[in-house]
């Protein structure tokens, strides 16, 4: 399992807090593990919660109709990259 970057750890903490993943610590989420389906097993309501937390913390609004958002929800790593790229705009 590859190590988390500082930005990924920050995002992992946001996920754990937003979704109340009590049984998993932020530093245990593998950067490339899939967030939905088999990995963390999140669903669309979770996606809504994550999007809400991201908008409140980083001011970035997710959009499902935007291809890059769909890709962003692949893993911790892609989600972090997406937010980093968009918050600087």
């Amino acid at each position, binding site marked *: 399992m590859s190590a988390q970057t500082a930005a990924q750890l920050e995002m992992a903490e946001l996920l754990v*807090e*937003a*979704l*109340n*993943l*009590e049984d998993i610590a932020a530093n245990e989420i593998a950067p490339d593990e899939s967030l939905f389906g088999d990995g963390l097993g999140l*669903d*669309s*309501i*979770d*996606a*809504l*919660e994550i*999007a*809400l937390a991201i*908008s*409140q913390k980083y001011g970035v*609004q*997710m*959009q*499902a*109709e935007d291809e890059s*958002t769909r890709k962003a929800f692949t893993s911790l790593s892609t989600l972090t990259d997406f937010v980093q790229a968009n918050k600087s705009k």
Partner: protein
Amino acid sequence: MACETTIITTITQQLPLLERQLNDRFAQVNSPLPALHGLTGNIAVSEFIGQVLQLAAHLPEAGSVINLCDNRYLFTLGFCAALLRGQTNLLPQNRAPATQQQLLDQYPHSYVLHDGLETLLDNCPQLNLNQLDLRAAAATAIPTIPADQLAAIAFTSGSTGQPKANLKPWHTFVTSSLMNAQEMLGDDYCDQLRFALATVPAQHMWGLETSLLLPLFARLCISDARPLFPQDVANALQQLPTPRLLISTPVHLRALVSSGVTMPQAAYLLCATAPLSTELAQATEACFGGELIEVYGCSEVGSMARRRTAQADEWRLFEGLEFAEDLTLIRGNHLPQAQPVQDRIETSDGRVFRLLGRGDDMVEIAGKRGSLQEMNKLLLATPGVLDGVVFMPEPGQQAITRPVALVVGKGISKQQLSARFTEHLDPVFMPRPLLLVDALPREDNGKLPRAKLLAFYRQLRGH
């Protein structure tokens, strides 16, 4: 009873597929659909009917169709084309391959209708709308459907955990849709054109009644979009002319209101599937600058009553429905037989009522009676509680079975929750255990069937 005479007269009749002016605006298609060669924009009622006729000619011979189209407009085309071919729309609770298999076994003369379903069952009879050309000449007449034709079977969670089949003949939908139009939109439902957007899928009863059936009988132009994130909702609303109507659920409204995204004005909002708090109703009205009507209903009956939750606690029963004398049954013109009311009702005049909680809601502990609904209300109104449920678990070995609380919270501790309950509840009703969880096992439509909840709780406790 009035309902019996109605059935006798409608049973041999033909009823229209829709009651709209042919040149009126029926739908706004935003996604480029292969079946329409990527055409987007407004679709008139006459064009819609032309496409329904075109699709009806493409459908295979069958008794029923498992309609799993994701795009709302294609779902509507499929639904109506099936009606014209005398096929029943089977509307399952989810799109899982196992569900498709179960329905194909149960209804052997059926097939899956879809628009590129990723979870399509291998080697099953199916038709992909994306592979058809549905462009067609505008129709000049409105088709009719036999009143007693079985239009749809809506599957819902039964109390035993097995899906329950709710049979919906076409006359049921026609009568209930006209009632819903009047009650949800008001006297001007035939006059005022509204532009509607729904965040709910069309397959479930609430989405079916509002985003598919209402546009057939009221002046609604429905968007094919099903936006998820707040910014998507804002964008999709922005693309619609005014006045706008937003059809949603409490889960979605909470996300929209707290997102910080500036929402375009929506003069009308409809919400159902789970109880809405007064606070959220008021915040929603402020956020959209419109009037929010909350609707109460169940799958057997459909929508039954409404209230403006921001201002009133009491529900008004829809005209066309009436409670039986002991308030445990409901009768209606569109109901073949009286149906049980799921909640206990308190009413002085039989029309305006309060919900006192589910029939199985009363909890008796140590000689004291409590209401689970009141505990749920208290829990959900607690700051920092995002979602939660208080329920009675299966009786265990303890002398007293106590309510259990499962809570999805944000920045709230167990201690704070306990303090909140202690403050408002008799100690015997204190939920124990009180567990913080990631999420409740809700279904796509936001519902939380008891069987699922109990299984989830067993899993949490590790047995």
